[in-house]
């Protein structure tokens, strides 16, 4: 079991140990977010995708996002894991879990973390489309344009 607050995983992630790590007697609220591979993106049917990362920088920047969240919100804990490599439709690409005494902080921090991860962490998505086309996604602005 990984003990870091943010890491990249090159194989499917078992959620049970993540939930156990998040457990805390003081925690009354657990908010989590998962990004799943959709079968379409902006109207184009998607067959699958691949995530590539600059691993050293991504893990440092992801850990920084979690540290900032813990400073900014009143939390018991926060964790995030992001997949790299090949993924199929329905696979989980990212998991964020946040615990807090109260639900407001848990929801706010969970959403803040996924927004920052998508905005700042050097991970790139390569999509394969049903029509045989494929390409890297380099959004003009990440925030608010994707799942």
């Amino acid at each position, binding site marked *: 079991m990984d003990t870091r607050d943010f890491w990249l995983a090159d194989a499917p992630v078992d959620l049970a140990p993540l939930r156990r790590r998040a457990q805390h007697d003081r925690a009354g609220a657990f908010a989590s977010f998962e*990004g799943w591979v959709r079968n379409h993106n902006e109207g184009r049917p998607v067959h699958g995708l691949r*995530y*590539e*990362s*600059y691993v*050293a*920088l*991504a893990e*440092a*920047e992801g850990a920084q996002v979690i540290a900032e969240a813990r400073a900014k919100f009143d939390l018991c804990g926060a964790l995030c894991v*992001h997949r790299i490599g090949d993924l199929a439709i329905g696979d989980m*690409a*990212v998991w964020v879990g946040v615990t807090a005494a109260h639900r407001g902080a848990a929801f706010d921090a969970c959403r803040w973390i*996924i927004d920052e*991860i*998508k*905005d*700042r*962490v*050097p*991970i*790139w*998505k*390569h999509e394969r489309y049903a029509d045989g086309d494929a*390409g*890297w*996604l*380099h*959004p*003009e602005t*990440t925030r608010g344009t*994707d*799942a």
Partner: protein
Amino acid sequence: MSTVHLLYFASLRDAAGQGGEAWTTEAVDLRALYAEVQARHGFVLPVERLRVAVDGAFARWTDPVRAGSEIAFIPPVSGG
């Protein structure tokens, strides 16, 4: 003359046909260095849409090029 190691990711890697390379340059800063590499490989992404990292930490385009450093050009990210 400084020799640095460059890292390419995602569409930059595809355009360069490699994940990285040694590069010898007289560029005064990282912005000038990207201009050289962009011309060499035909990168379509303008410098304004990239970030740059040196030795595993984000850097500024106005930072000087240090010999022996590992420099990564970071295209717009799309994780999540």
